[in-house]
Structure formats: structure tokens, C-alpha cells
């Protein structure tokens, strides 16, 4: 139907999407977990006996009842974890003797439906001897409370760049220092985690809302001790992921194990309460920064120290803070940059990639500090940025922290952001209000970010195929798995464009390991950049194969066969012969090319600008305008990219103003009211958001697309915080820590020292 923008819209917007929870398998059992109400403690006993007598309960098990239950796998992908970090630190899928985060599963109950299973859960008793809980890096650092006996809570140390010579700080005209808290966030997809495991003969079919079906197949096969070809993973419609759905979680291990053990279908449909307690977290860093410049505002050195909260187990994200260290330099030519980090275990659920995944933390740190330095130098923060941007002719640019930026024009993005915002007009309004004692103060903030997309070395490739059929239609396959990224619309359009055939003739198949034997998945904003480039490549190969086939069919040299609009053409002196793709397949047999394609790492960038108004008596922040200029290289579908930018910016607003987890004295998150306690921005909170783009093609693939999905989360938070600091003219920006809740802003506004600088 014409009114839908995307192929998937009609299905999804009319309630005909098919999610894991919609799949009806006869005889399927629902899993419900008995969860720890304490954050840290020794598990003395679990008794499931009474649960087994509850009508409709098929079974109940603690770790002691399942001696063969494998532990939760760790991942070395993208350096997210390391052998050293997990050595001696097992993550049992059900707690064996030590609870390390609130909500950790103590037992599982299977019932005929979720109601019965929960009735069983209510009958399980557990005895836990509480231990002191440490829920922040600063509390956990000194090892006075250890999560693993005999091992430090510091599970990984890392660095990027070289230490800065102390003389640089000593001799600089201006040096600023600050500390920032990157608040711990919940990814909060609309659909929580799901898994349905169905034994069929000697195989297991696993349905899951998942970003990396081939990884899930590989990890499940390893823990079952099976060869991967006995497992089929299928990803049906998935209601968002934001990075949080790419692992084999403890509950997944239990479900797969029990489905095989019992020979029955078993599913776990995570509900919101579970998700808020035990789904992976994002961000969570305590940062200390130091930035030096000469009297002209040329940056001399930047130092970033990170204490990262990685949660209770190092298996999934202990190395994630390296993403922050590698991107520490930001958009600037600072000659000396040194980032160090300590990944600290705490009594919280593990930290894992969440939209932005390490880059928002880097961007926010440098961009807040640039404003601080501008204030110290008495320089316009815009001008300070302009003086230090990596210039367009300097690419590829090697940063002191080991990144190789591929392409960019950072000043152009900033120019467009300021023009779109109406920067001069807002400056005049800000200055007018500063003279009017009755007016609410207004501030303007910018944030210029660079990020990395596609993945890390060793994970920059994707697999797929393009196949032509006798009826002239084309099937594209790839190893990606969408959770809302519009693959169904964008990829067929791309293949159709390369082949010169109508879009409607191209169909996409993905998210099924039986259909596509190898694949990496959807993460790191890689859909267009990597999978798109792979499909463009495969479609180009198909054209070459078709020309060769036609040449053989017609007995002419291949170079005399042209390709035009989905047709092979032989232009001979005696008249042209032409054959459509379908007829070629009929004449010559199945036509399918498949390949593995490797892209280069890409560095999208942009400039975000915010105007905020602050009510100093209540501490309320109102965003009056937010402009997001993003450059993701070549844009395949402007509407889709715009939607990504918008949603991402809203999540950036969430981090800046609303989202935070408060803990009680025992280390348990105070989230009993669900989304009444963990506040996401809603429609009513949204400011006017202007989305614009510049398009600097990425050199990493012929397609030229870079990642588009994470821009707002990365660029917007610092723009908003800088705008609030500007409104309040704060001398100590450490008073403003995200989320900027009214009480914290009120306290900052009434702190004794105010900057009365010349800005």
C-alpha cells in the first residue's frame, strides 16, 4: 500500500508482526526464574520441592539439580572480553554459591504457561546470607569487598596513546581538569529479550529476537557440545535491541539446556520487570580529564582516566571501555592524547554495548572539556573547536590513541548545525536574558563528535548472496539480523538499483542460519556500511556471472555482452540480442553468487547544537531546540537514516536529562515502579529536533556508506549539558552530572561560585 514508507511498515503497524512471543508451538513450556532480591550474598540453600507440586508446573530446578548445566559463555569479539579477565571467574547460568547482582537467577520453573510457572516460582524458597554490596567503581576499587574471593575487582586495565610528559602541563598557557559521571543506562527496547527452543529430531530450532544469530548458534552449539549444523537460529520480527541482544545470556543457556534435556519446546519471554533488573546496562564510567592548550587555543595534550563499571561478571563487556579510550581524541588534532582505564566489577548486572557503546562516553568527555577550556581561555567555544579540528585534507588521520579516521569535514558539519540552529539569534537572546532579572536563563551548547562504525578488525566483514530465479525475481541473502533498521526496504532497493530491475522484484532473506550459513549480524551501525556494501558487491558479481553465461550461450566473447536494466545484451552488427535475467536462468540453470566481503572501519561524524532554558528555582531544564547534523557518508534511504538520527537523538536526550538508576542502601536498584522510576523521554518531552546531514563518502567501500544509527546518542548529550552549563555560567562543571535532574541542577545553580567570565 502506497501510504507505508517501508516494506515492513504495513505488517508492523497493523499488528501483524510476528515476534517470538507470537509463535505458537504445541506443548511449549514457559520458563520463569526465581531471582535474588539481594545484590550480593552467599547462597546457602534453594528448595524447589513445593514448586514441583503446583498444578501446571512441569519442573523446577536449582543449580544443584542441574549438574550438567553449562556456564554462561564469554566473548572475545571486538575485545569485549579477554581470557585473562574471565580466568577464575565463572558465570554460572543459575547461581551456585554466590549471588553477585540483584535479580541473578537462583532457580528456574517451567510451567504450562507463564502464570503457572510464576505460581511455582512463588513456592521456591532460598536462603541467602547477605554480603556488603558495591555498586559503583569507586566503592569497588579498593577491594575491601571482593566479588570473587582472592581476585581483585579490577578485571582489566587498558590504555591508548602514550603518557603525557609532565612538562607539557607545566608549560601550557591553560590547563583544565574535570570529573564526569557517565550514568548507567538501560537500553530499554520495546520488546524485551526472547528465546524459544524447539527440539526437532536431532536438531534444535531456536527462535530469538537477536542481533547475531550465527553467534548465538555457535555459542549454543558449544555449550551443548553439538556441531553448529544441528542448530538453526531464526530471528523473527524483533522490537528493538540497541546493542543489548547479541549475546547468549544466562536465561538462554538454561532454556536451551532444558529444552534438550526434556525433549520439549521451552521458551522465555522476558518481561519488563525482569529486563529492568537483569538485562544488560550501558555506559557507567567515572572519568577524570585534563586538557591543555597554548595561549592561542591550540590543544597541546589531553588525558582521560576511566574507572568503568562493568558489572558483576567480565564475560561480555569488560573490554568495552577500550572503545572510549580509542576514541578519546575526538575531532581534534591534539598531538598528545593518553587514555587509561580500569574495568571494575560491581554488584550490578553487566555492562554491555548500548547504542553508542563507548563512543558517547568519549565524545561527552572531550566536548564538555572543550567548553571548560574555552571559558578558561576567554575564547568562544565555537572558535576553539574550529582552531583544532582535523582538517579535511588531513585524512586518513592517525590519532595518538590508535584510530585511523577515514574521511571527514568537521567544520562543514558545525557550520551547518549553527546555521540551522540560528546561532546568532540565540546568542542575542541569551545576552538579552542575562540583562533581564525576570527572564529564565538560556544557554547554547554544541558538541562535535567523531565515532567509529562497522566493527573492529576481524569483524568488518559480512556474508551473503544474490540469486536470480526463472521468473525474473531476485533473492538477496545476508548474515545481518534487523531489530528495526529497515533492512527489508533498504537492501532490496540497493540490489535492485545495482541490477537495474524494479525494487518489487527483489526479496531479502536474513536472520535464519539455515538460509544463510554464515554471518556476523547487526551491530556497530554496520547494516548499510558492511552488509550493504557486501550486497552491492554480490549484485555486481551476479552481473558479471550473467554476462559470462550469456556469452557462452550465444557463443560470443564476454566483453561483447553488456548489462542494461536487468538484461544481458549482445550488440552485434547484424542486430541486437537481449535476454532478461529470468530467461537466462531458464536457459542456463540456477544463477547464484555468494561471497564474503570485508569493509574498512568507518568514522562517521557530526555536530549537534542545543538551546536550553533553565528554571533556577526548580532546576528544570527545557530544551528549546536541538539540531543534529550527522555525516554517515553516502545515504541509501534518507527517510530511514532520518528516523535513525531522530530516535538516537531522543535517547541522547534521555541520557542527558532523564535516565538514571538509583540504588538503595543494600545495592538494589530502586525501580519498583518500572518506567515511573526509570524515566525515558516521552512524546511530551520532545523538543523541536532538526535533523540535517552532510555527506562525505566513506572510502572504506565502493558504496561509501558509514554507520548511521548511533549518532544522536553520541552527539546530543554533551550539547545539552554544555547548554545548561552555559545558561548557568557555572565555574565548576563537575556540579552538572547526567542525568541533569531538577534537584541536581537546582543545587548547581545555587552553588556559591559563579563564573562571571567575559563570554
Amino acid at each position: 500500500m502506497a501510504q507505508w514508507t517501508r516494506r515492513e511498515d504495513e505488517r508492523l503497524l497493523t499488528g501483524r508482526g510476528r515476534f517470538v512471543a507470537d509463535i505458537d508451538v504445541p506443548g511449549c513450556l514457559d520458563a520463569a526464574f526465581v531471582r535474588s532480591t539481594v545484590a550480593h550474598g552467599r547462597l546457602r540453600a534453594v528448595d524447589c520441592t513445593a514448586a514441583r507440586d503446583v498444578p501446571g508446573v512441569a519442573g523446577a530446578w536449582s543449580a544443584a539439580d542441574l549438574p550438567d548445566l553449562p556456564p554462561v559463555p564469554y566473548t572475545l569479539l571486538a575485545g569485549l572480553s579477554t581470557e585473562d579477565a574471565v580466568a577464575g571467574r565463572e558465570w554460572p547460568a543459575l547461581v551456585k554459591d554466590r549471588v553477585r547482582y540483584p535479580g541473578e537467577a537462583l532457580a528456574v520453573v517451567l510451567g504450562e504457561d507463564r502464570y503457572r510457572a510464576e505460581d511455582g516460582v512463588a513456592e521456591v524458597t532460598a536462603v541467602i546470607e547477605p554480603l556488603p554490596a558495591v555498586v559503583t567503581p569507586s566503592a569497588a576499587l579498593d577491594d575491601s569487598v571482593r566479588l570473587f574471593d582472592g581476585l581483585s575487582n579490577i578485571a582489566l586495565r587498558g590504555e591508548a596513546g602514550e603518557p603525557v610528559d609532565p612538562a607539557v602541563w607545566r608549560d601550557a598557557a591553560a590547563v583544565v581538569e574535570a570529573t564526569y559521571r557517565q550514568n548507567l543506562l538501560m537500553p530499554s527496547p520495546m520488546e524485551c529479550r526472547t528465546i524459544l527452543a524447539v527440539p526437532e529430531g536431532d536438531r534444535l530450532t531456536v527462535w530469538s529476537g537477536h542481533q547475531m544469530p550465527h553467534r548465538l548458534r555457535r555459542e549454543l552449539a558449544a555449550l551443548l557440545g553439538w556441531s553448529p549444523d544441528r542448530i538453526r537460529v531464526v530471528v523473527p520480527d524483533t522490537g528493538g535491541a540497541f546493542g543489548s541482544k547479541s549475546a547468549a545470556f544466562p536465561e538462554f543457556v538454561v532454556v536451551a539446556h532444558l529444552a534438550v534435556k526434556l525433549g520439549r519446546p521451552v521458551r522465555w519471554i522476558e518481561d519488563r520487570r525482569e529486563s529492568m533488573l537483569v538485562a544488560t546496562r550501558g555506559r557507567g564510567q567515572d572519568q577524570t580529564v585534563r586538557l591543555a592548550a597554548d595561549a592561542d587555543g591550540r590543544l597541546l595534550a589531553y588525558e582521560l582516566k576511566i574507572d568503568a563499571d562493568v558489572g558483576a561478571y567480565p564475560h561480555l563487556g569488560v573490554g568495552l571501555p577500550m572503545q572510549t579510550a580509542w576514541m578519546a581524541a575526538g575531532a581534534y588534532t591534539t598531538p598528545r592524547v593518553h587514555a587509561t582505564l580500569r574495568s571494575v566489577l560491581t554488584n550490578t548486572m553487566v555492562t554491555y554495548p548500548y547504542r553508542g557503546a563507548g563512543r558517547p562516553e568519549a565524545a561527552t568527555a572531550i566536548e564538555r572539556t572543550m567548553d571548560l577550556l574555552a571559558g578558561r581561555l576567554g575564547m568562544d567555544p565555537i572558535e576553539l573547536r574550529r582552531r583544532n579540528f582535523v582538517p579535511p585534507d588531513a585524512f586518513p588521520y592517525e590519532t595518538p590513541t590508535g584510530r585511523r579516521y577515514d574521511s571527514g569535514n568537521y567544520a562543514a558539519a558545525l557550520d551547518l548545525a549553527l546555521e540551522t540552529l540560528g546561532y546568532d539569534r540565540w546568542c542575542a537572546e541569551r545576552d538579552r536574558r542575562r540583562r533581564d532579572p525576570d527572564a529564565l536563563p538560556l544557554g547554547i551548547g554544541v558538541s562535535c563528535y567523531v565515532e567509529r562504525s562497522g566493527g573492529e578488525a576481524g569483524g568488518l566483514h559480512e556474508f551473503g548472496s544474490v540469486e536470480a530465479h526463472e521468473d525474473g525475481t531476485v533473492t538477496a541473502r545476508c548474515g545481518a539480523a534487523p531489530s528495526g533498521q529497515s533492512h527489508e526496504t533498504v537492501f532490496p532497493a540497493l540490489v535492485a538499483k545495482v541490477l537495474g530491475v524494479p525494487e518489487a522484484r527483489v526479496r531479502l532473506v536474513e536472520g535464519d542460519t539455515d538460509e544463510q550459513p554464515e554471518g556476523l549480524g547487526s551491530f556497530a551501525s554496520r547494516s548499510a556500511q558492511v552488509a550493504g556494501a557486501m550486497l552491492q558487491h554480490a549484485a555486481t558479481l551476479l552481473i558479471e556471472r550473467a554476462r559470462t553465461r550469456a556469452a557462452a550461450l550465444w557463443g560470443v566473447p564476454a566483453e561483447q555482452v553488456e548489462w542494461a536494466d536487468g538484461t544481458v545484451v549482445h550488440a552485434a552488427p547484424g542486430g541486437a540480442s537481449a535476454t532478461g535475467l529470468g530467461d537466462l536462468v531458464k536457459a542456463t540453470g540456477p544463477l547464484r553468487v555468494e561471497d564474503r566481503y570485508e569493509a574498512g572501519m568507518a568514522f562517521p561524524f557530526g555536530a549537534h547544537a542545543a538551546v536550553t532554558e533553565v528554571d533556577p528555582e526548580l532546576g528544570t531544564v527545557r530544551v528549546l531546540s536541538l539540531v543534529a547534523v550527522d555525516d554517515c557518508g553516502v545515504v541509501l534511504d534518507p527517510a530511514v537514516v532520518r528516523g535513525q538520527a531522530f530516535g538516537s537523538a531522543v535517547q541522547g536526550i534521555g541520557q542527558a536529562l532523564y535516565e538514571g538508576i538509583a540504588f538503595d542502601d543494600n545495592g538494589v536498584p530502586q525501580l519498583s515502579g518500572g518506567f515511573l522510576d526509570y524515566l525515558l523521554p516521552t512524546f511530551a518531552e520532545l523538543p523541536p529536533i532538526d535533523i540535517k546531514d552532510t555527506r562525505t563518502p566513506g572510502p572504506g567501500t565502493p558504496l561509501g556508506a558509514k554507520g548511521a544509527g548511533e549518532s544522536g546518542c553520541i552527539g546530543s548529550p554533551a550539547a545539552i549539558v554544555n547548554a545548561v552549563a552555559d545558561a548557568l555560567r557555572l565555574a565548576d562543571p563537575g556540579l552538572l552530572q547526567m542525568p541533569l535532574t531538577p534537584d541536581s541542577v537546582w543545587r548547581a545553580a545555587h552553588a556559591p561560585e559563579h563564573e562571571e567570565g567575559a563570554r
Partner: protein
Amino acid sequence: MKPASFDYVVPRTVAEAVEALGDTGREAQVLAGGQSLILEMHLQRIRPGAVVDINRVPELDGMRVEGDELRVGALVRHAAFEPATAVPGPLGALLSRAVVNIAHPPIRSRGTMAGSFGWAHPASEWCAIGVALDATVEVTGPAGARDLPARDYFLGPHRTARRPQELITAVRLPLLGADTGVGFIEHRRTHFTFAQVAVAAALTVHDGVIVDARIGLVNAADRPVRAHAAERSLLGAETGRLPAGPRLPDGHPFALAGRIAAREDAAPVAQPYADVEYKRQAVAVLVGRTLLEAAADSHARLTAREGHHR
């Protein structure tokens, strides 16, 4: 989470409902809009033996003016108060200004005013208006009907003078005179969530002098609060020329009343992102601003009346 199993009872009359509640062998909960109860049952923080669904009791529906009071039946939904003209005079304006702060439209289309009185959440807008205006809660139990004055009704968070076997049949609110101006301002972190603090105010002004003041504080204690001390400070004060902006000069009677309300009337309970000090600050600021809104409303009503008579 799923609710634990429970019996579901659907009475057709108040008598049947009271009978269902009167079965002391099991804990019963009344279901009207269900916007709090069902969530609590999902989370198994409430595990009632029986749910008594009163939605099919026709005599509990509807609101009407009786004498100088508005009687709101137990099935009247929040959304009924959205038009300022749904209830006569300044009371209609006050309820209309307050109701848009209650969650969002789907919740307002199901939740009920009487249900808010039954649930007695400290952040309830209706409950604070109830204590400010001296509302009456009508209940019927096995021993018959009785009236509970709002001032004696709230005993703490989710604790009231209603006995478990009693059903709230209606809430009665006194109508406000034409010479009364009203204001309602709520402060919360997002539109969707509960108030950190909110204030309801009604000011009666004769010839520029305040002769009656009613101030209700939302979420400023473990129960709704009527700010008596702040009200007393206003009696006899002249409204004078009203400041244009939201900020009041320190010496203005409304600013003074705000500080008194924060210091003497409020007894804040600390919450994440709103400790006691911050809540007192918010009470002081919001009382001042709400009084300003009420005074402006009073002035506008007076001007409209004079224009009408001219």
C-alpha cells in the same frame, strides 16, 4: 510478572458489592479503573483473594450538583473533568487544570477520582484538592453508609479511615464561589510520571483583600496536606499589582506563604532525585507560583463579571 490467582466478583448493586467485600475470609480489593491495582497485582505486591469489579453497578456512575456540593460517583473517570465546563464555576476550572497532570489520556479514560481517594497515594492530585477544599468521602459498609471528612480520612501512604469492608460510593466536593480564583501547578520530571511536588490553590478576594485561602500540597508528606499555616499568613493580605513573571519578590505575601508552607506545613519524604531539602524548595516555589496563578484567575473572573454587567 503475572498476578497470583484470585476470585473475580461482579456485583450489580452496591449491596452486592458490600456483601462481596464483607466476606472476611479473604482479602478483597475493589476494581474500578484498575490503573493502580492491576499493576500492583502484576508485580504481586498485592495478592488479593478476591477482586470486586464495581464497573457494572449503575448507581455508582455519574456526577451531579447537590446543593452547594458536587457529588462524584465512584465510576466517574478522570477524563470527565478535562473540560472546564464539566463542573460549574471555579471548581470546574480547578479540576480541569489539575486533571491533565494525571498520567496520560489512556489512564485518564479509565482511572476514577473515587479510586484515587481509595488508593490514597501521597502524590495524588485529587487527594490534595480534597483536603484543601474539605471534601467528603462517602462509604457504605455492612453497618450502613457514613461520611468521612477528607481532613480525617488520610492516615498515611495508601492508608485511610475506610474499613476493608466498606465501599467508596462517591466523593463530594464543595462548589467554589464566583469570587474565588484557582490555580494548580505540578512539578515532575516527565509528563508521564508522578509529581515530585504539586500545589492546588483557591483564593477568595474581596476588594483586593484575601478573605479565604485554601492550599493543598501534593507529595509534600506521607499523605495529602492542607497548608493551614500558609493559608493563615494570607488572610487579610492585599493581592496588589501582580508580578508579571513566575518569579516573586522575596517579600511578596505569596513568596512568604510559600516559605511557610515549606517550613511548617510540609513534612517531605525523601525520594530518589528529590530529597527533603529539594522538596521543601519545590513546595516554597510552587506555592508562591500557584497563589499567583489563583490571584490572576480571581482577577480575570472579576474583570469578566464587571464586563458582563457593563
